[in-house]
């Protein structure tokens, strides 16, 4: 059976998405809402000005329990999980022996012996097999399949939550807590992937629709789909696995070396550490940078990047129109010598070399709630 013949999995909110008029598309094996009747542009802009609710239940959730959970997970990720406080969340990656990235993930510490992971939909089975292969028998591993994941994002998210769960508003960016939203138990992180303030809420499948309806009924909240999520994270300069990072890019090349603490950079102890340490010391061959076309034409993924003389430098990994930026925005890999902000580049769009330059990331300032 070809992939297109494989029946799509449905998320618990499937019926609600259809009731709301969502356009459902195949994504990582699931039927997911790409947009609602308002459209990607309106959903994107509303997320930046008000609040939007995203269903990200296709993503994987997992937990690791056991007295050695932290030290064992550190053998697979370069993040400093020892230094992570209880109730804190950290962005990290699984690396391979070449220092490439197998997936990016969120790691939360619920207790010294209890970690909660959120991993990408398309990678979740491979990630879990990876965890079992390396940590199986040494810790308790559980793929969480009975919970949905909803993300409330935007500067209006806190106002929407204020009446439903006042204690949630005391949380700061990248913290996790068990809270009750309108009577519904939720494991919430104050995070998201849009560059805005907000919460990601893990909720029992049986309660997912009630939670979604409650949040959608809050003042100023509208539903938003994966289309808006993608343009929001691109403007925020955040990596999409499979586009901006993959097994051929190290965290250093991806320009996310900040996910490693000084201790992990020095000690290593994760797959591909030697290669990553060498790149940290000598500089990586290529780097992910923000790229802003000077004109209006969007440069999409795989658009060729050249220098001003027309020599190939690399390609765009993610690109398109940034509704809040008000024009085209992109990210791409270029040799380190071309990574300085302001460096002039050309982008070959439909056979024509268009002017562009290396731009600071993010394109739209992050507005996380730091307290």
């Amino acid at each position, binding site marked *: 059976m070809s992939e297109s013949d494989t029946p799509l999995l449905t998320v618990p909110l499937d019926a609600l998405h259809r009731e709301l008029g969502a356009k459902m598309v195949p994504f990582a094996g699931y039927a997911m809402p790409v*947009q609602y009747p308002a459209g*990607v*542009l*309106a959903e994107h802009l509303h997320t930046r000005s008000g609040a939007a609710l995203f269903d990200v239940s296709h993503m994987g959730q997992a937990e690791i329990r056991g007295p050695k959970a932290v030290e064992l997970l550190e053998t697979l990720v370069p993040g400093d999980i020892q230094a992570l406080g209880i109730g804190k969340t950290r962005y990290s990656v699984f690396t391979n022996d070449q220092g490439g990235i197998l997936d990016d993930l969120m790691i939360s510490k619920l207790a010294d012996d209890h970690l909660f992971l959120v991993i990408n939909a398309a990678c979740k089975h491979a990630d879990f097999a990876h965890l079992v292969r390396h940590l199986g028998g040494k810790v308790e591993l559980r793929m969480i399949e009975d919970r949905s994941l909803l993300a409330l994002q935007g500067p209006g998210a806190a106002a929407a939550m204020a009446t439903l769960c006042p204690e949630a508003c005391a949380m700061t960016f990248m913290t996790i807590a068990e809270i009750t939203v309108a009577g519904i138990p939720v494991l919430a992180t104050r995070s998201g992937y849009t560059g805005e303030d907000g919460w990601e809420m893990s909720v029992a499948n049986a309660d997912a629709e009630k939670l979604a309806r409650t949040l959608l009924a809050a003042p100023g909240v509208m539903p938003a789909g994966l*289309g808006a999520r993608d343009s929001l994270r691109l403007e925020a300069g955040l990596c999409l696995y499979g586009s901006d990072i993959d097994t051929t890019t190290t965290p250093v090349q991806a320009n996310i070396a900040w996910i490693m603490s000084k201790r992990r950079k020095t000690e290593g102890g994760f797959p591909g550490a030697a290669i990553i340490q060498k790149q940290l010391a000598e500089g990586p061959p290529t780097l992910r940078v923000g790229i802003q076309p000077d004109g209006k034409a*969007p440069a999409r993924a795989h658009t060729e990047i050249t220098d001003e003389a027309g020599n190939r430098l690399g390609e765009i990994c993610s690109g*398109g*129109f940034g*509704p809040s930026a008000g024009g085209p925005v992109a990210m791409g890999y270029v040799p380190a010598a071309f990574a300085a902000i302001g460096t002039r580049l050309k982008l070959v769009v439909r056979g024509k070399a268009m002017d562009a330059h290396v731009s600071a990331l993010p394109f739209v300032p992050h507005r996380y709630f730091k307290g």
Partner: protein
Amino acid sequence: MSSKRFTKDHEWISVEGDVGTVGISDYAQHALGDVVFVEVPDSGRQLAKGDEAAVVESVKAASEVYSPVSGTVTKGNQAIVDQPGLVNEDAEGAAWFFKLTLANPAELDDLMDQAAYDAYLKTLE
């Protein structure tokens, strides 16, 4: 005669005298979603029937607009270049893409009239 004719790629053309006006159908703009970028052909450009003549991009994707007939471009519509969202608002009216003088008016006979196009759209559902 100024009634519209349509291609299977969802372009429309309306002809007055020997000048055709070309755009994309309302169905096409709806399928594309929010249009954020448009490129129209320069005056004087020679187009054969089926040539890529213009580009229309939504937030997510780029699409080509093909010329429904052969001819010489006389004008591109600057209004939609300046304001791409107009394509969503009035695809079959103010948001035309370009005008051209027809090289071979008989090519129009290969295109669908409104009734045939509506029937064709039903087959896509």
